[in-house]
Structure formats: C-alpha cells, structure tokens
C-alpha cells in the first residue's frame, strides 16, 4: 500500500479551499489537544481559556486588535516582497531597527514639540530605518548575489544585539533600576488609546492594507514586481530591471516592518526595550503565507493570530506551559499548508509496487 498523489484537472473552488483550511485547522487543534492532554491538562478547558483570552471579552478583543497591528504590518511587507519571489525573513530586525530610529527621534525632540510634528517625525523615522535595514540585504543581493533568506536572517540577530546594547548601555534609563529600558519618548509622540483600549494602530494597518491593495491592482510597479517574480526572463525582455525591483520592493517591505516598530513604540511600550516584540516579525511570515499574500486576508489572519497569542497568555495564567501556544502555531501552519496543497491533488491508496 502506498500513497499516490495525482494532479486534479479541475480548478479548486474558493469554498473548497476555505473548507480545507478549516479542516486543517481542526486537525491541528486535535493534535495540539493531544499534546495538552499529555501535559496533564484538559484540552477543552485549555482551548476555552485560549479563546476567552483572545476574543472572550471586549477588553480581550481590543488587546487582540492592538497586537494584530504589528503582525499585520510586517506580514503585508513580507507579502509584497513575495510578489517578486523574495523571501524576507528579516521583518523582526527591520521592526526593531525602526523602533530604534523612532526612539532616537522621540528622545531627541524637545518635550514641547506639538503632537502634529512629533508623531509624524517618530513614525517617519521608523519607516526610513526599517527600509534602510532591509536595503542592506537588498544591496547584498544586487551587488554580490547573497541569498536574501540568509542575509535578512543574520541581520535580525545583529539588530537585536544592537538594541540590547543600547538599552543596557548608553540608552539605559537611570530611573528604570536594572530593567533594560530606554527612557520614555516624549509624551506628544505617544499615541494614546482612541476607543476603549483600542489604539490608532488599527487605522494605520488598514491604510497599509489599502496601500498594498492599490499597489497590486492599480500600479505599474505592482505589475513589474509580479512579472519579475513569476517570469524573470520575460521581465528582462520587457525592460524591467531586476536590481531596481529587488531594491525597491525590499525597501518597501522593510519600511512596513519599521512602521510596525514605530507604531508599537508609540502606542504600546513608549520606550525602547527588547520586549517590544515577542517575535512579531517571525509570526508575520506565517501570517503572510496563511493569508495567501493578499491584503485583506492578511489583516484577518493577523487578527486571528493575535488572538491566539493573546489567549496564550491566559493559558500561562492557568499554569499550562506557553510552549503549547508555540506548538499550536506550528501545527496550524503545517496542517493548513497540507490542506491547501493537497487540494491540488487527488490522493489515492495504491496497492503493490509503483507503476
């Protein structure tokens, strides 16, 4: 007996894709439930706690939406780089470099700078710095042919160490005792909550999603990205410069991650610290993929994902190890990937030797 995959001739309907994603997610939850049971807890109560912690109350849901902002922004950036078949796994580093620059500006501006000037300065610094950090990988690729997966990955570690150096060394807040924090940026550059505990980040995420949507459907650049990604030879023949595409798209990708860092700084932490992101840039890789690279689904998936993350914290409260939430993330990804990929095939059990 062996498994055989045969390609299906008919195209897969969207409804079926959704059903497959749902089945994949269910399977992941069942497998995750087994792991929870192994750890001596009740899977159903754990999942109930997970969902309550993520979506169960107004406060929980607002917290989830706030967390969805950095994940979604990074994921949009990763997705736009993927248009040109570039794999940017450096969103985490770009986010932190954005937060670093935003903090630098936020600490340097005089305390009485009006919000109308301070806020755009801080956010703008984040955008530029994120773009710069990604541009390093782009330049390495264009000039030397260095694989961007590896360079963006290495740049993550370098940036995290840089931020670690700043918050423990020259930027350590003398008033924060031994906590590795920078002093808070000026008040006028901090975005308070808009509605309940909901902050303005969600509007920025919506704007970024709209931006990606417009790039896709309304610009020449968006078209060039996809041509140079899907058909590099045709792109060259059509006069599209691969170097320009690589450079521009990675800059935009990094800018979105840098924006995420600046927004997180301005809305949530108020100061530079390593806890600014618990790995948003890495989660965003999965979210970008699960969202199929498209703007609206990415926003929705990032909200779901943020819920899982938020709910994971309530798990810890009920003394279930937080690694469960990590395992669940991985299982969800693998199962949904399997569900979607297998949709392109018909699976058969074949007896005997291969034909």
């Amino acid at each position, binding site marked *: 007996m062996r*498994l055989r*995959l*045969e*390609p299906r001739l008919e195209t897969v309907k969207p409804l079926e894709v959704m059903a497959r994603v749902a089945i994949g997610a269910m399977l992941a939850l069942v497998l995750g439930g087994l*792991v929870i049971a192994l*750890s001596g807890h009740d899977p159903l109560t754990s999942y109930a706690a997970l969902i309550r912690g993520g979506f169960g109350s107004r406060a929980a849901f607002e917290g989830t939406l706030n967390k969805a902002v950095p994940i979604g922004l990074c994921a949009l950036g990763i997705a736009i780089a993927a248009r040109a078949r570039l*794999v940017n*796994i450096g969103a985490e580093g770009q986010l932190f470099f954005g937060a670093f620059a935003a903090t630098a500006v936020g600490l340097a501006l005089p305390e009485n700078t009006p919000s109308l000037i301070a806020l755009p300065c801080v956010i703008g610094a984040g955008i530029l710095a994120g773009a710069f950090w990604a541009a390093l990988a782009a330049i*390495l690729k264009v000039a*030397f*042919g*260095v*694989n961007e*997966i*590896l*360079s963006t*990955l*290495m*740049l993550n*570690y*370098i940036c995290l*160490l*840089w931020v*670690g*150096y700043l918050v*423990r*060394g020259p930027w350590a807040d003398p008033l924060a005792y031994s906590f590795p924090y920078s002093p808070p940026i000026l008040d006028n550059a901090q975005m308070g909550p808009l509605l309940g505990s909901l902050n303005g980040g969600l509007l920025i995420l919506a704007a970024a999603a709209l931006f990606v949507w417009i790039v896709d459907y309304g610009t020449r650049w968006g078209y060039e990205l996809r041509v140079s990604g899907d058909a590099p030879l045709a792109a060259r023949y059509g006069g599209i410069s691969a170097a320009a595409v690589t450079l521009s798209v990675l800059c935009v990708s990094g800018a979105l991650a840098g924006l995420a860092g600046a927004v997180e700084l301005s809305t949530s932490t108020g100061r530079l610290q390593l806890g600014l992101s618990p790995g948003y840039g*890495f989660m965003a*890789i*999965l979210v970008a*993929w699960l969202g199929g690279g498209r703007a609206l689904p990415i926003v929705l998936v990032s909200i779901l994902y943020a819920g899982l993350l938020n709910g994971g914290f309530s798990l810890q409260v009920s003394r279930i*190890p937080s*690694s*469960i*939430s*990590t*395992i*669940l*993330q*991985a*299982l969800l*990804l*693998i199962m949904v*990937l*399997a569900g979607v*990929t*297998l949709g392109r*095939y018909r699976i058969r059990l074949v007896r005997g030797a*291969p034909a």
Partner: protein
Amino acid sequence: MNIELLFAAAIVSATPILFAALGQLLTERAGVLNLGIEGTMLVGAVCGFVMTFALGSTAMGLVGAAICGGLFSAAFAFCVVTLRLDQVVTGLAFSILGSGLSAFVGQAYVGKALPMRGPADAPSTIAGIPGLGVIIFNQDAMVFLAFAIAGLITFYLYKTRPGLILRTLGESPETLDSLGITVVGLRYAYIIAGGALIALGGAYLSVINTPTWVENMTAGRGWIALAIVIFASWRPGWVVFGALLFGLVDAYRFRAQASGQAFIDPHFLNMLPYLTTLIVLIVMSRPGLRARLRAPAALGIPYDREKR
C-alpha cells in the same frame, strides 16, 4: 590570550555546527532544503539531555538524540516528499515546532545537571603536551566523530556509487527514476540521516558542551550551519573549513569576554558570528566563484514523476 587554548576551544565551538552543517549537506545534496534545522537541533538537544539524564549514559543519550532527530525529520520528509508541501514554509514551521516541542519537553529539566561529568570536563593526561597536544588530543570523542563523519561523507560522495546516486538525486532526480531507482525512498533516507546528524549537533551542546538544558539554547547555530553549507557550495571539505572559521570567531568572542580583555562591549562581540557569516557569504557569492559553485539543480523542488 593563550593561542593553543583558543584553537582548542575553536574546535569545540565548531563541532555542533559541523554536525548540523553535514546533516544539512546530505539533505540538500538529496535535493531538499531543510529549514527546520534550528528546530531539529533543539529537538536533539532536549532529547539528548533528557535521555542522558534518564539512562545515565552519555552514549545512550547521544544515540537517543540522533533517533529523535531522525523521527522528527521523517515527519518533515513526509510533508515535503510525499505530500510535496512548500519546503520553505514547511521548514520554518518545523523550526517553530521543534522550538515549541523542546521547550515543552525540557521545562521539567531546566536548571538540572547531568549525573555524570561530560567527557569534555574529564582530566586528560595528554593535555600536558604543548601545541597540538592541547588543540587535538584534549578533545572529547564527539569532536573526532564529527571530523571523521566529514571525511566519510567526502569519500562517500565522490568515490562511491551510492554517492554518485546521491549527487544525481539533487541534480536530476528524473534520471534516477528512469533508471529504476526510487527517488522518494532515497530522499526519505537522506532527510532522516541528515536530521540525525543535525540533532547530534544539538545534543553535543546540551550533553557535552554546557551540559545543561536551556530553552532555545542553540541560539541560531542552525541558521549559521545553513549558511555554512551554502558558503561551502555543498562540499564537505569546505563545510569543515567554514565550521572551524565560525568556531574560531566564537571561541575568540567567548574568551575575550571571559578574560575581561574585551575592548568592546559584549553585544558587539556577540555580533561577530553573524557578521562573519555575512562577510563569508559576500566573499563566496562573487560572480566568478558563483558560476563554479552551483547549488544542486533540483534543490527545493518536490519530485513529481508526472511532470517528468
């Protein structure tokens, strides 16, 4: 700084990377990119530690780690070879899975020490010999094993028929298929063997090098191993060189920090391995070199005989 001790420490730092890079080399030569390498190392580290703890034997712990790494990679192989899932996304997912699983299994063992001392701590009589004595003879058996495996793989890859088949597996699997050799089975075999080696690299850290279990203790070494395989252009001899280079940088960083002779902040010293990897990648990616140092042609492409 004592040069002999520095080189001795470099070899110790190089060993886990060498195991992982050799495992990745086997996998990639077979045409599969295993981005789950970091997670596989962590699985190896935790399994090695737990089994050494439970069985009271370093050797059994290491064997157990290799078996667990093989099993973990078999699951990866099922996803990318049989189900033909995207290797990049699946690999990243397996890295996350390995990180989560190892944290989950290892949480009861955080802060515990192994019942016996690792061989690295064992007093050695040959260590008194100056020069090479310290560098070479004062090492544990796993170091020798790592370098022996590198030699074996070189011989296997270039001098034997199965090695020729392995090289073809990554270049042109359809040729093998037309000769009646099963591509799927062979890819499974090399992914599993590679995973076992990668896991040994992780176990070296937790069982022999430190010896403790700390969450996410591999700290990016899997990714560095991955970079070394590319830098070595998929040749085992260069993998050894790359791992030693990394080991030297790592040992220097560690000793400079420990001896208090560091002129710069430890954060910058800690950047060295990543900066070195980047610089090495730049040097090795020069167009002239690049033309000769080609990746296996079928790397990352799921084999589908209907598209032959």
